[in-house]
């Protein structure tokens, strides 16, 4: 073993990722790469109507088809359910409807599974699905969420209405008066289109109940391997220590794979029922139609300001849909918490309704509450226009300055350690906001429509309930190599790399000798999983605590063995040495060997071994990062198409562990947001039929659609160990608002406005025609 590289100052460096060599050479291991002896393959029979009463399901022909082992319906599997199918954190939230995995009374959305074929090969399973005859009496679906509360039809007949949840923070008289009598105000209804997570790897699972060993082995594409174990145990009735879940490499999740959905639970129950390994790999149509839905919401926002442009208050009336079987429901509460975001806004009223519809079920998607930024930032622009102010000027008058922190949000929560004013100004400088305004006038005179838009926001990381804590287990082996075991479920975030950076720097061992293990419940400590942008602030803090703890032990052992004071021991590059006397040194390997094998060489009374498990828990309900997105666009006045000219992000995620990883998260999120604002649109017709079921209709951004993203960094450390903050979701939160405002800034030149996304050519042309262009 070589101990060449110095290991200090790794936190903050753009070191290459540990994940990359295997992923670049085709040696990653994703769930579809898993093959188990005698493994069977599953395919689902799914409803092709939005709502209907099941009269009968005829499976005889399918069961007799070549290669078929079993055709399972709700009659077979629903009675096996030993516990609720909801994801663990949402158990207490009163999840909807009957707890059943396969539809047996009604089908409730296009894609609702009502039977599953298990066959020797996937092709045979898919062929047999075609032979299943579903006799279904179609019913009037609840297809439009905006009218779902008025509908006489019920998505779940046992419920009084289609309301899945809601909240009213009442409009008090003071705010009502303010909104009515303030010198300036604006009221608009903004619509956010339904767009989806779309990980490039679809969902998939191999579930293997071995009745001989009485144990479950599960390989799955997930963000939360430990919760897959918990849910498996709950729905089958086995105990958690009979279940081992491994996730391997995962091809993206963005929230879609945070909670184990019905589909995977059906596979688990089928394996339990049949006693053999069953694999299911979702196809792309299933992923678009039946995996999870997201966004699809609208809000009416009224905002008012005084004569000087001080914002006085906001009223928000919001509605969103959660589909038929939401795994986590609406995120509107979070939106309400952070609605006033980066501004001083003393009064807020926020009412929201979440409704069931006969559409695919909602799940979290990257910044699930981002409607708050999307509509707030557009409302601020509306107010600025009504005042005759530049949108950046109104923001400057209201943005929270550092000396105004901590700021008590109207919802009663304290906001601190953020830098909205700094990121606003940094982004404005980067994009040369004033210069752009001058150029915009020139270009308009020459007949071009160009615009600039701002998306300024605070990004909360929830640290409530199971999200407050994370473990990190570090073990230095007798040869001095270091293993780190995490309960996380990295699926692109580079956690193997960033963890090794923290460990290397804080223990004092070389980066190359640190190996990070995650995604295997057999070896890693329990944690909820990767999501909510918590890997930096909470997992990072746990890793730092554990690393420092281990370093102390190394120092103690070295001091004892070198007969020096612990204060004089330095640990770096895998060597513990007496400061100023590099010849008096022990390698980590020597120290570690003594900790396991030469116990007499340890300080008296010291516990043998060189490992530690630390759990970090924060007492703060939320941690905050913040950013400002600014972009410039050109709108083609005849075709209505939008081209992004520049896209700038000024981000404050506290201390950066690896700026390349940070920028990768920003870029990926921003491009998803750009996609949602301009291209992506999952459309249902009035009968609840999805119209965008392939990549030919559901348009993801390609390399030709995206601008070069320019990054600026502001660093306000968090108060957590390490000072890291979350950065996984923000890109997707800020970008749609910035794009919406930029498009409307260009359209404003001719008096046009679009309030409904996506900002498609057709919609823009319509808006231009409405003002006679």
């Amino acid at each position, binding site marked *: 073993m070589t101990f060449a590289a110095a290991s200090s100052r790794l936190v903050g460096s753009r070191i290459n990722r540990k994940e990359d060599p295997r992923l*670049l*050479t085709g040696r990653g*291991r994703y769930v579809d790469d898993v093959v188990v002896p005698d493994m069977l393959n599953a395919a689902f029979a799914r409803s092709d109507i939005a709502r209907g009463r099941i009269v009968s399901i005829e499976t005889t022909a399918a069961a007799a088809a070549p290669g078929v082992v079993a055709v399972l319906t709700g009659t077979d599997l629903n009675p096996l359910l030993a516990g609720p199918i909801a994801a663990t954190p949402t158990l207490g939230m009163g999840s909807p409807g009957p707890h059943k995995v396969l539809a047996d009374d009604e089908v409730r959305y296009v894609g609702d599974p009502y039977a599953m074929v298990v066959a020797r090969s996937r092709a045979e399973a898919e062929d047999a699905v075609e032979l299943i005859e579903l006799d279904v009496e179609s019913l009037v679906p609840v297809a439009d969420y905006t009218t779902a509360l008025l509908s006489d039809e019920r998505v779940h007949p046992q419920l009084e209405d289609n309301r899945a949840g809601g909240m009213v923070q009442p409009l008090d008289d003071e705010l009502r008066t303010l909104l009515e009598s303030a010198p300036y105000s604006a009221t608009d209804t903004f619509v956010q289109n339904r767009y989806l997570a779309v990980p490039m*790897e679809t969902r998939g699972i191999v579930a293997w109940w071995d009745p001989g060993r009485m144990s479950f082995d599960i390989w799955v594409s997930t963000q939360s391997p430990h919760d897959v174990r918990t849910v498996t145990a709950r729905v089958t009735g086995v105990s958690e220590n009979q279940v081992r879940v491994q996730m391997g490499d995962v091809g*993206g999740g963005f929230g879609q794979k945070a909670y184990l959905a019905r589909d995977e639970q059906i596979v688990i129950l089928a394996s339990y029922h049949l006693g053999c390994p069953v694999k299911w790999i979702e196809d792309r149509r299933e992923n678009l139609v039946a995996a999870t839905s997201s966004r699809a919401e609208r809000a009416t926002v009224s905002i008012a300001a005084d004569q000087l442009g001080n914002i006085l208050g906001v009223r928000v009336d919001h509605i969103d849909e959660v589909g038929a079987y939401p795994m986590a429901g609406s995120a509107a509460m979070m939106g309400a918490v952070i609605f006033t975001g980066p501004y001083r806004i003393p009064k807020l009223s926020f009412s929201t309704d979440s409704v069931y519809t006969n559409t695919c079920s909602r799940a979290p998607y990257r910044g699930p509450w981002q409607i708050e930024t999307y509509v707030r930032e557009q409302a601020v622009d509306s107010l600025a226009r009504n005042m005759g102010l530049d949108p950046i000027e109104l923001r400057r008058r209201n943005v929270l300055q550092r000396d105004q922190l901590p700021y008590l949000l109207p919802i009663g929560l304290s906001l601190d350690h953020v830098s909205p004013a700094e990121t606003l100004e940094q982004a404005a400088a980067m994009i040369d906001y004033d210069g752009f305004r001058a150029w915009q006038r020139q270009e308009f005179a020459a007949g071009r429509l160009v615009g600039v838009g701002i998306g300024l926001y605070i990004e909360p990381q929830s640290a409530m309930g199971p999200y407050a804590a994370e473990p990190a287990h570090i073990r230095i082996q007798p040869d001095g190599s270091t293993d780190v075991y995490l309960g996380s479920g990295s699926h692109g975030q580079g956690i193997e790399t960033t963890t090794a950076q923290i460990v290397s720097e804080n223990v004092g061992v070389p980066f190359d000798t640190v190996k990070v293990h995650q995604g295997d419940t057999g070896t890693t400590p329990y944690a909820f999983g990767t999501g909510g942008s918590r890997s930096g602030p909470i997992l990072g803090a746990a890793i730092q605590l554990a690393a420092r703890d281990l370093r102390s032990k190394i120092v103690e052992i070295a001091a004892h063995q070198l007969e020096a004071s612990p204060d004089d021991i330095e640990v770096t590059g895998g060597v513990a040495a007496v400061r100023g006397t590099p010849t008096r040194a022990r390698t980590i390997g020597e120290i570690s060997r003594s900790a396991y094998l030469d116990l007499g060489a340890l300080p008296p009374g010291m516990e043998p071994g060189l490992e530690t498990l630390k759990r970090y828990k924060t007492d703060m309900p939320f941690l905050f990062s913040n950013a400002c997105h600014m972009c410039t666009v050109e709108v083609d006045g005849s075709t209505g198409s939008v081209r992004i000219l520049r896209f700038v992000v000024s981000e404050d995620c506290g201390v950066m562990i690896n700026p390349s990883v940070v920028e*990768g998260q920003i870029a990926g*999120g921003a*491009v998803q947001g750009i996609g949602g604002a301009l291209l992506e649109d999952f459309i249902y017709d009035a009968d609840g039929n999805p119209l965008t079921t*392939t990549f030919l209709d559901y348009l993801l951004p390609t390399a030709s659609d995206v601008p070069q993203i320019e990054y600026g960094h502001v660093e306000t450390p968090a108060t957590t160990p390490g000072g890291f903050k979350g950065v996984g979701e923000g890109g997707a939160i800020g970008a749609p608002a910035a794009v919406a405002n930029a498009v409307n800034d260009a359209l404003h030149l001719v008096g046009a406005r679009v309030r409904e996304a996506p900002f498609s050519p057709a919609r823009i042309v319509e808006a231009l025609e409405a003002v006679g262009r």
Partner: protein
Amino acid sequence: MAVNGIPRTASVEDRRTLAEFLREQCGLTGTHLGCEHGVCGACTVLLDGGAVRSCLLFAAQLQDAEVTTIEGLSAEDGSLSPVQQAFADHHGLQCGFCTPGFVVSVTAFLSSNPAPTDGEIAHALSGNLCRCTGYQGIIAAVKAVAGR
């Protein structure tokens, strides 16, 4: 057919795609399936040196073909090809699922056009979908290999 220089003889069902053949019969699971309808490019392999979508080709049609997969692009000692190294150096991947398709496509593209313009790069990459990177690191990697 020869796959990564190794002759392969097999009888295959007529509906078996090249992607399935590579993944299931050759054990070469680096070729990924992101859509199975010819749009995402994750399944891209080299067929007689040109980039093709292995989800759209039937294995049975390719009797005397030379196929190179992602596994065949790195050196035998495991060291990365210049394109692979550039992806690592420029953070051109996150989850890695789209990556084999991009690396194969870029390898074919740069061998036919070693000095592309920005527009040509964007155009060449637009046949492959990535949901993680926003294409930023991928474009930077291609420019780096092209010496720009």
